[in-house]
């Protein structure tokens, strides 16, 4: 069991308001790790700190033992990290396959003038083949040439995942991948994510849909008010009183715990 990602005493405050306070946890390579917590608990802020969109006030993030806290987002991608966004951020003018190809940016090296020479774009051709494969994987193969903005909501989410996968990440950060999806779509998504995990990609995800999280995750970190309040396997989390209280209030927590022990 090797640790892939380490978050160590991470804090972030905006204008004196503490969004993340002294959060620490490890993500083990090859696992699916979930981060849950009520709305406003600081999950997206945490994701932005890990992926480099925000700079921490204090604390560190390390990937494979290397401190990446000060690296800009693109450098983290080059080290094997990819992410999706809660409020889908596709390149909406581009076609579906172009979005995926953009995700392959760091693997492509052909100089631009090769486009001038007919039949010389071998690398681009390979890239397109790989992109097509990824689209196949997420079930968008037939939409490759569609403008991405015209995709349905669930399709856009899947395209974002395909785009993130295109960089061949070791770890994939998913910010509420099931948000806005219907139950059927959510199920499909779970199947897809499992498949990815089987391919050896470590997943770190923030999600609200508990059934989804409980089914999928090997390990769960619970966040509330920017603090880690619990950590463990789904079964442990489910019966953790602090967690239930955070979600459903003390009374339901009491009742459920009673039922469980009865």
């Amino acid at each position, binding site marked *: 069991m090797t640790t892939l990602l380490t978050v160590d005493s991470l804090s972030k405050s905006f204008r004196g308001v503490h969004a993340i306070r002294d959060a620490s946890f490890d993500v083990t390579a090859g696992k699916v790790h979930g981060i849950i917590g009520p709305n406003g608990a600081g999950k997206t802020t945490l994701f932005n700190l890990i*992926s*480099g*969109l925000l700079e921490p006030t204090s604390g560190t993030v390390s990937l494979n033992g290397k401190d990446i806290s000060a690296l*800009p*987002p*693109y*450098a983290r*991608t*080059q080290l094997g990290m*990819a*992410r999706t*966004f809660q409020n889908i*951020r*596709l*390149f*909406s*003018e*581009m*076609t579906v*396959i*172009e979005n995926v*190809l*953009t*995700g*392959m*940016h*760091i693997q*492509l090296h*052909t*100089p*631009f*003038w*090769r*486009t*001038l020479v007919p039949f010389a774009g071998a690398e*681009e051709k390979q*890239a*397109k083949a790989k992109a097509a494969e990824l689209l196949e994987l997420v079930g968008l193969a037939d939409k*490759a*040439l569609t403008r991405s903005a015209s995709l349905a909501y669930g399709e856009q989410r899947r395209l974002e995942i395909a*785009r993130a996968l295109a*960089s061949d990440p070791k770890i994939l950060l998913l910010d509420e991948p099931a948000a806005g999806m219907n139950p059927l779509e959510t199920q499909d998504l779970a199947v897809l994510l499992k498949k990815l995990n089987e391919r050896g990609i470590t997943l770190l995800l923030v999600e609200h849909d508990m059934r989804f999280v409980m089914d999928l995750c090997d390990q769960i970190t619970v966040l509330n008010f920017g603090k880690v309040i619990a950590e463990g396997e789904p079964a442990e989390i489910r019966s953790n009183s602090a967690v239930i209280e955070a979600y459903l209030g003390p009374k339901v927590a009491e009742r459920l715990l009673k039922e469980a022990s009865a």
Partner: protein
Amino acid sequence: MAEWLDDFFFTYETLIHGIGVHGLLALSMYCVMAVGQLSLGQAAFMGLGAYTGALLTLKLGLPFYVVLPASAFVPALIALLIGGPTLRLSGVYLAISTVGLGEVLRVIYINFESLTGGALGLSGIPMKASVSLIYALLLIALIMFWAVGRSRIGRAMEAMREDEVAAGVMGINVPVYKLGALIVSAMLAGIAGCLAAHSSSFIGPNEYGFETAVTILSFALLGGIGTPLAPVLGALVLTALPEVLRPLADFRLVINGMIIVVAILFLPRGVLPLRLRRSA
């Protein structure tokens, strides 16, 4: 018939030069806007190229094939110098700080009289920029941009234009791309300036200010920036327009302004709203 052609060419020679040079300037603007930045410093880079070129020709008598690259090099160097701090800026701030560059350069041209001729400018610049050279360069630039646009680099640039944050997450080195685009655009504007100087025989310090910057921007805005051809088309229209509207005399500028207004309000993607096709 030949004489007629000759007269026609003579009449519109400056216009033909102008369209070519403005086409290059429009592409230099395109290059910056393609990564989602707004610069009003293209006129300043153009001026640097014009002064560099004119001085090397007039004072050192260097051959044109040396002068032209040199006039791309100097603006590129300045772009590199100002690039670092200004690229932290976005939108309006970058635009206005690049206006500042133009004004500072103007003061320098005016005050370094012994070299630049001050307000009198530099005259008697030999006409070395032939129509064929200008259009050959424009064509090369167009092909290059088209090639870049179709490549992974063009894809990265479009991604930055649409969503800088997401582009960074894709592994695109956003600051380096921005700096690169600014430098290339400065080179292109410098070449355009050098060609303009060597086709109009006279340059002065007041030609590369705010108004010129705005004109260059309006090429790209009118044309659109979906393909490299669009800004060039914008340059064509806006350069020919004053001549087409010549009979309207005073009202030309009014019409010119209204065209910009109408284009922005009703043609937000420019008159050529196509998008470069990349994936077939």
